[in-house]
């Protein structure tokens, strides 16, 4: 019995001994530590210097999308037109395991294109397909293909009408559309008849097309490239010992997928440009104060940028601009530090001051004093939007500024 009591006492004491609870609400200043956390907020107006803008990082044919737009403006019209080319099979196709036959003509073809970005407010979206010279390449300009776009289109498709069809299939034209709600894209499958799909065997069977779009408003979309790029299925007639036979060769992908547009992007000036096609980036070099870097903890940093002009671009195509830092300052070829980025959405037409939270990067600079104190501004999706924004540079009155909120070293050990 005595042992049981002792064991009980021991257990109670042990349980009590193992629990520690020290946290209590403070009542300052009487029952608080003498030292307090001191927060300082400062606006660095002259710390950003030697800024510059560069263009040409991603050009149109390197973009993962083909931009199409038709947006009349006050002074000009933004007109973007995808152009793409399919190489053919040459003049002959196999008709048996040992023989080939002359390709006589195409019965028809089926063109599939993905619309990977669109504005849900766009209505009555129409696509017009034009036959282009097969000589188009990555250097082709808007003006170089202006003439073929004045010809009659080989096909016209109203996407909204097609979407309204039962099963999203037009039994008359043979067109259909598949709505991919997961990836938020449409797959258009369009039938091109003999006139629209001319197979010229003597020209290797190559064909090139261009697309113009139109809509009631906000005609601005993006077509996919690569794995979600245009593909062409030919339905051919091939000569087999004097008898034309039908052949359905393999599907062809594009050998060129690009887009042309007008008006061309304005050349760089003294402002800090970000975005556009080809894409532009800007570098801002920061004289990071030592008193902040060495003996304080940064809890918030905000970069203020004042647009020199309203952000350009299709009204519906807001784009994300991101502030990053670089691993080494080599000017336009500075390698980007991929670890951190601070994004902000740029709305075309907006002239409000842009505020970007750059706390992570400032903390990185404070932690690693060898790190270049350089901000790099670039569009997150380069050359995938027409949008471009230009900010006042450091030599302007409305120069970039940096607001830093930091905490001084806590006075540990002071009674």
């Amino acid at each position, binding site marked *: 019995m005595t042992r049981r009591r002792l064991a009980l*006492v*021991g257990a109670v*004491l042990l349980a009590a*001994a193992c629990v520690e609870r020290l*946290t*209590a*609400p403070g009542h*300052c200043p009487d029952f608080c*530590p003498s030292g307090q*956390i001191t927060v300082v907020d400062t606006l660095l107006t002259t710390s950003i210097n030697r800024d510059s803008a560069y263009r040409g990082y991603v050009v149109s044919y390197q973009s993962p999308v083909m931009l199409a737009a038709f947006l009349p403006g006050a002074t000009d019209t933004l007109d973007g037109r995808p152009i793409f080319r399919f190489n053919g099979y040459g003049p002959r196709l196999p008709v048996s395991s040992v023989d080939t036959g002359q390709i006589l003509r195409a019965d028809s073809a089926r063109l599939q294109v993905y619309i990977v970005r669109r504005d849900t407010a766009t209505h009555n979206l129409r696509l017009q397909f034009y036959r282009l010279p097969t000589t188009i390449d990555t250097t082709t300009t808007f003006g170089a293909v202006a003439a073929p776009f004045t010809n009659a289109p080989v096909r016209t498709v109203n996407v909204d009408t097609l979407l309204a069809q039962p099963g999203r299939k037009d039994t008359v034209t043979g067109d259909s559309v598949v709505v991919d709600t997961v990836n938020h894209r449409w797959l258009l499958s369009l039938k091109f008849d003999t006139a629209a799909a001319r197979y010229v065997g003597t020209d290797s069977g190559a064909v090139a097309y261009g697309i113009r779009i139109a809509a009631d408003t906000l005609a601005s979309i993006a077509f996919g490239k690569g794995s979600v790029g245009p593909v062409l299925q030919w339905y051919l007639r091939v000569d087999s010992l004097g008898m034309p036979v039908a052949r359905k060769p393999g599907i062809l992908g594009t050998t060129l997928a690009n887009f042309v547009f007008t008006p061309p992007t304005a050349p760089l000036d003294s402002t800090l440009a970000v975005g556009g096609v080809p894409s532009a980036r800007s570098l801002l070099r920061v004289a990071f104060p030592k008193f902040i870097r060495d003996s304080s903890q940064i809890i918030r940093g905000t970069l203020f940028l004042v647009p020199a002009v309203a952000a350009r671009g299709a009204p519906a195509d807001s784009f994300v601009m991101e502030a990053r830092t670089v691993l080494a300052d080599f000017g336009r070829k500075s390698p980007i530090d991929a670890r951190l980025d601070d994004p902000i959405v740029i709305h075309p037409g907006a002239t409000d001051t842009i505020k970007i939270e750059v706390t992570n990067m400032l903390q990185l600079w404070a932690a690693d004093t060898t790190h270049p104190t350089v901000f790099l501004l670039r569009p997150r999706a380069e050359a995938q939007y027409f949008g471009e924004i230009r900010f006042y540079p450091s030599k302007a009155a409305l120069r970039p500024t940096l607001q830093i909120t930091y905490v001084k070293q806590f006075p540990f050990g002071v009674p």
Partner: protein
Amino acid sequence: MRPAVGIAVVAMTLLTASPRDLSAQDSQFGIRGLGTPGRWESVRARSSGGAFAPFDALSPLMEAPLADISTLTATAAGGTSHRDAQLGDTITQLRATRFPLMGVAGRVAPRLVIAGGFTTYLDRSWDVTLRDSTVLRGELERYRDEITSDGSVGDIRLAAASRLSRRFAIGAGIHILAGSTRMTAVRRFDDSTFHTVGQVAEVRYDGFGVSGSVLIGVAPGLTIAGWARADNRLRAQVGDSTIALTDLPRMAGAGLLLAPSPRVRFAGSAAWRAWSNAGPGAFDTWSWSAGAEFGSGRMPIRLGVRGGQLPFGPGTKAPTEFAASAGTGRAFAQGRALIDLGVERLERRGGILTERVWTVLVGLTVRP
């Protein structure tokens, strides 16, 4: 014998279970100052209000009583406190386990006993949260601060004592003050665009002190004691930088022991400490205690009260404290092992803060 083993196991478990060593009961009153001074008393002395501390060889208050130790003796103490801190209408329940005392003493010559050990000089363990707001960038930003300190300053004592005659014993000691606290300061803003502030530092402390004491048998059953101690300063360092140098107090005290019979003992003591040297917000303190011990050495009953002042607090008056305590002890193995148990009820008052503390104490003494 088996109950003794059980109690010993419990005591040893209590002494080894907590990760927090070298600490004493802390208090909200110590947050703003240097800390909460430790109690230089064994469980036996503390169970009787601290009145027997000047006459207790196992209490590190005085050195002279060491002269009566005949064999090698080691002791340790632990305690768990449950504290209600009442600030205005807000009561916060706090709990802590501390191990404020450990020591060993032995006779090295017929008239010389030396001892070594440590006790808590200042406890600096606390955790304060604060809800407030400030205007940042033109907006009212609400935040919660949590500032913590975990650690203490220990008093490592090397002491020697000698009984010069049947009525007269003296002792002296040197004290090395050493310790550290791990301090953190955290601020979390409600607005997550402001990152959390988190700063950490290891603060190291050092200091030095000397003490001396005397024990005089005035008459059979009547003994008086006197002691004095001077510490130089407490240096606080973070990294290689000295953050603060704080003067430490001189202190002195006296005690009276009356033993009308071997089974009844009464004691009283008083002490003065010049803590006002430590700077603004620090006060000189007086403390007193009275206690009694009844019964044989095998299982005595101890009672006591104490009162006095605390060295740190708000306002112009030192906070006050009053405690009542009781306890007992049990000897085992022909007196080679002693378990002391005690309980203390303490109340501290100062400004709008009132602390009420229950403390359970366990002491273990071994004479191999």
